[in-house]
C-alpha cells in the first residue's frame, strides 16, 4: 500500500471512530454551523465534542503546520482528508473567518510570535474573527477607505466606520484595514488586529432583504491599538488585503453548495411536477451541467492552486463563476418550490428558509468583490487586455 493509501485508511478509521452521527447530517442552516469563539453557544454536545476532538488532532485546519494548531498535512493528504470527510458527509468541525481568511494572511505575512499566538487560538475555536474592510463610501473602490489610525508612539488611535462586517456583533477580534498615511492611497493602509471589546468599538446589525442580519455597521471612536498588533509592514496593508481577498474569493466561490450542489435531490422529489414542466426541467438540467462543470473546475483549480500552478488572479474567476451559479441555483429552487417556497414564517417552510436563503444569495456576487470587478480583474490580469 502506498503512503497515501495508508493515510486514507487511517483517516477513514479515525473519522469512523470520532465523528458523531449527528455531525454527519447535512448543514441545514446557519444555526448548524460551529463558529467557535468566546460568545459561541454550542448547539449540541455532539457539536462541541466534534470540534474538540478535531482541534486536538489539528483537523480543524488540517493543512496548517502543527506548531500553529494544524495537522501539517501535505496538499495530497489534505485532499484525501477532504474526500474522506465528504464521503461520510461530515460537517466541518469549525468554520471561521479566522480559518479562511486571517489564517492564510498570517501564515504569509505574520511574525512567528503572531502565528503561534493567533493561529492556535483560531485552530482551537477560542477566538472568532470578523473582517473590517468595506466602508460606507468604499465598496468596490475599497482603496478609497478613510478609517484613520493616528500614530501615538507606541499605539494608534483609530477612528472611523466599517460596514458589511460579517457577524461583527458575535466576533471577538477584528482584522481591519486602517489608513495610516493620508498622502498615499495604496501605500498608506495598514492591516491591524484588535479586540472588539476594546473601548470605543461598537456594532449595529443591518437588517437585510432576507429579514436576517448577518452583517453589521462597526464604529471606531478613539480605539487604542498597540503597535505590535499590525500584520506585515506599516502602510503595506493593501498587499495583505489583496492576498486575503484571494482567499475570500476562493471561499465564496464554493459557498452555499450543500451536498453535491445539484438538482438531483429536489429534481427526484419533484419528478411528477417536472414531467409537466418541461421548460423548467430543461433549465434545471442545464444548471446541473454547469454545476458538475463547476465541481470539476473547483477540483482542478484547487489541485493547481495548491501546487502553485494556478494564475494568482484565478480565484477572481472562480468567485465570479461560483457566485453566479449559486444565485441561479436559488432561483431554480424558488421556481420548483412554487408558492410553497414563498412562505416566510411558517414552521412548514422552516421559517421561510428557502425564500430567505434565495435572497441571501443575491449578496454573493456583491460581497468580496462584485462580479463586474471580478470580470475586470480576469480581463486585465489573466487575459492581459489593454487599457488602464
Amino acid at each position, binding site marked *: 500500500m502506498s503512503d497515501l493509501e495508508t493515510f486514507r485508511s487511517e483517516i477513514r478509521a479515525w473519522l469512523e471512530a470520532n465523528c458523531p452521527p449527528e455531525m454527519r447530517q447535512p448543514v441545514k442552516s446557519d444555526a448548524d454551523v460551529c463558529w467557535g469563539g468566546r460568545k459561541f453557544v454550542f448547539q449540541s454536545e455532539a457539536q462541541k465534542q466534534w470540534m474538540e476532538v478535531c482541534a486536538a488532532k489539528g483537523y480543524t485546519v488540517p493543512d496548517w503546520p502543527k506548531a500553529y494548531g494544524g495537522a501539517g498535512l501535505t496538499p495530497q493528504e489534505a485532499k484525501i482528508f477532504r474526500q474522506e470527510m465528504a464521503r461520510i458527509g461530515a460537517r466541518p468541525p469549525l468554520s471561521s473567518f479566522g480559518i479562511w481568511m486571517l489564517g492564510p494572511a498570517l501564515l504569509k505575512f505574520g511574525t512567528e510570535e503572531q502565528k503561534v499566538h493567533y493561529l492556535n487560538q483560531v485552530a482551537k475555536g477560542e477566538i472568532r474573527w470578523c473582517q473590517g474592510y468595506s466602508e460606507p463610501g468604499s465598496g468596490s473602490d475599497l482603496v478609497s477607505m478613510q478609517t484613520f489610525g493616528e500614530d501615538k508612539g507606541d499605539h494608534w488611535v483609530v477612528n472611523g466606520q466599517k460596514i458589511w462586517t460579517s457577524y461583527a456583533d458575535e466576533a471577538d477580534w477584528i482584522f481591519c484595514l486602517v489608513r495610516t498615511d493620508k498622502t498615499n492611497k495604496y501605500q498608506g493602509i495598514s492591516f491591524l488586529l484588535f479586540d472588539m471589546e476594546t473601548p470605543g468599538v461598537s456594532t449595529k446589525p443591518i437588517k437585510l432583504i432576507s429579514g436576517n442580519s448577518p452583517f453589521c455597521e462597526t464604529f471606531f471612536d478613539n480605539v487604542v491599538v498597540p503597535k505590535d498588533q499590525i500584520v506585515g509592514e506599516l502602510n503595506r496593508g493593501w498587499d495583505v488585503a489583496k492576498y486575503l481577498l484571494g482567499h475570500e474569493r476562493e471561499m465564496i466561490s464554493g459557498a452555499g453548495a450543500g451536498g453535491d450542489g445539484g438538482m438531483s435531490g429536489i429534481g427526484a422529489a419533484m419528478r411528477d411536477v417536472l414531467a409537466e414542466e418541461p421548460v423548467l426541467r430543461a433549465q434545471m438540467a442545464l444548471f446541473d451541467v454547469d454545476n458538475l*462543470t463547476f465541481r470539476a473546475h473547483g477540483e482542478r483549480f484547487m489541485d493547481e492552486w495548491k501546487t502553485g500552478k494556478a494564475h494568482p488572479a484565478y480565484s477572481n474567476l472562480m468567485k465570479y463563476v461560483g457566485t453566479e451559479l449559486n444565485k441561479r441555483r436559488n432561483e431554480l429552487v424558488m421556481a420548483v418550490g412554487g408558492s410553497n417556497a414563498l412562505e416566510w414564517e411558517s414552521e412548514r417552510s422552516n421559517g421561510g428558509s428557502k425564500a430567505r436563503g434565495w435572497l441571501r444569495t443575491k449578496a454573493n456576487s456583491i460581497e468580496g468583490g462584485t462580479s463586474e470587478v471580478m*470580470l475586470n480583474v480576469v480581463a486585465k490580469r489573466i487575459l492581459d487586455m489593454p487599457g488602464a
Partner: protein
Amino acid sequence: MAMTLNEDQTMLRDSARDFMGSEAPVKHFREFRDKGCKDGFSHGLWKQFAEMGFTGILVPEDQGGLGLGHIEAGIVLEEIGRNLSPSPFLTTSVAAVEALKLADSAMRERWFPGIIAGETVIGLAIDEGAKHRPEKTACTAERSGNGFKLSGHKQFVVQGASSDMLIVAARTAGAAGETDGLTLFAVEKDAAGLSMEAARLVDSAVAAHVTLDGVQVDADAVIGEVDGGWSVLTKMLDAGRVGAAAEMVGVGSGAMDMTFDYLKQRKQFDRLIGEFQALQHRAAHLYGEMEGARSVVMKAQSLLDEGHAKAELYVAAAKAKAGLACNLAVREGVQMHGGIGMTDEYDIGLYMKRDRSLNEFFGDAWFHADRVAIMNGY
C-alpha cells in the same frame, strides 16, 4: 488522480501541439477543402499520425498499441481541434477502438494492426435520423444462414465512404426505443447490398448516407454479444462523446485565442477595442466558460479511465458543456472580429463551422443535458 497533467502527459501535449501546428495547421485543412478532396482528410497525414504513435493510443500494449487512456486521447484531440486538423482519429482510433476492445480476438487481430499503422479507417453507422437517438435504432439484422442479414438506413456516417469497415448498430430483437435487442456488426466496405452516398458538410468533412439492402454478414461479424450491443455501443459512444468534447475544447480555445489576439490589435475610435469594458467582460466570461469546459472534460476522461460509476454522468455533462462553451467561443469570435469574421479568407468562420458539426456529433448539448437530468433522477 490530480486534475493536472503529469510529466508524460505534458510531453505528449507538447509533441501533439508541435506536430499539429507544423504538419496539420489550419492551412493544411484549407488546402484539402479547396481541392475538393473526396475523403475530407489526407491519407498521408493519417500515416504520420501512426508514426507519431497517436493511432494506437487507446489500443492495449499487448495488442501493439500504447495502452493509454482517454486523458491522453483527449490531449491529441484538443490539438486536432485547435488546428482543425482533418483526420479519422476520433472515429477510428477513439470510438471504434473502444468498441473493438470488447470484440473477440480474431476481430481485434483483423483490425487493430491497420488502425495502428494508419492504414485503416472505420466509420460509425449509428444515427438513422437527423438527431442522435441511438436507442431508436430501427435498422434490422435478421438471422440468415450462418449469420445475419442487415437492412436499413444510416446517416451522418463521418468519412463513411472512405472507410474500410463500418460499425453498424442494428436490431436483432425488440423495438425501436428499447436498449435491449441491439447488436453491433463489423461490415466491410465491399459487402454486397451496401451502398453509400457521400455528402459534404458545412465544415467540409464528408459524411455518408448509408443504405443496407439485405447485407449478409457472418456470425463472427458481431462485436460483443447478440442482443446485448447496448453496453458496447455505450462504451463506444461515450469514448466518442468525451473525445468530441475534448476536440471542442481545442476548437473553442483556438477560436478564443484568435479572438483575444484580435482584441489586442484592432483599433477603432483611436483605441484598441480590447480596452472597451463591454468586450472585456464578454471575453472574461468566455474564458470562464472555456476553463469550465476544460475541467469537466478532464474529469469525465479520468472517471472513464478509472471505470468510475459516475463516468457516464460526467461524460454527458462534458459533451454538453464543451458544446455550449465552444459554441459561445465561435459566436463571440465571429462577432468580435466584425466584418472580417464573415469572410472566407479569415479563419474564425472555419472554427464556427467545425463547432457546429462537432456539437451535433454523438448528440448535442440539449440531448446530453437531458441525459444528465435523467441520471440525476428527474
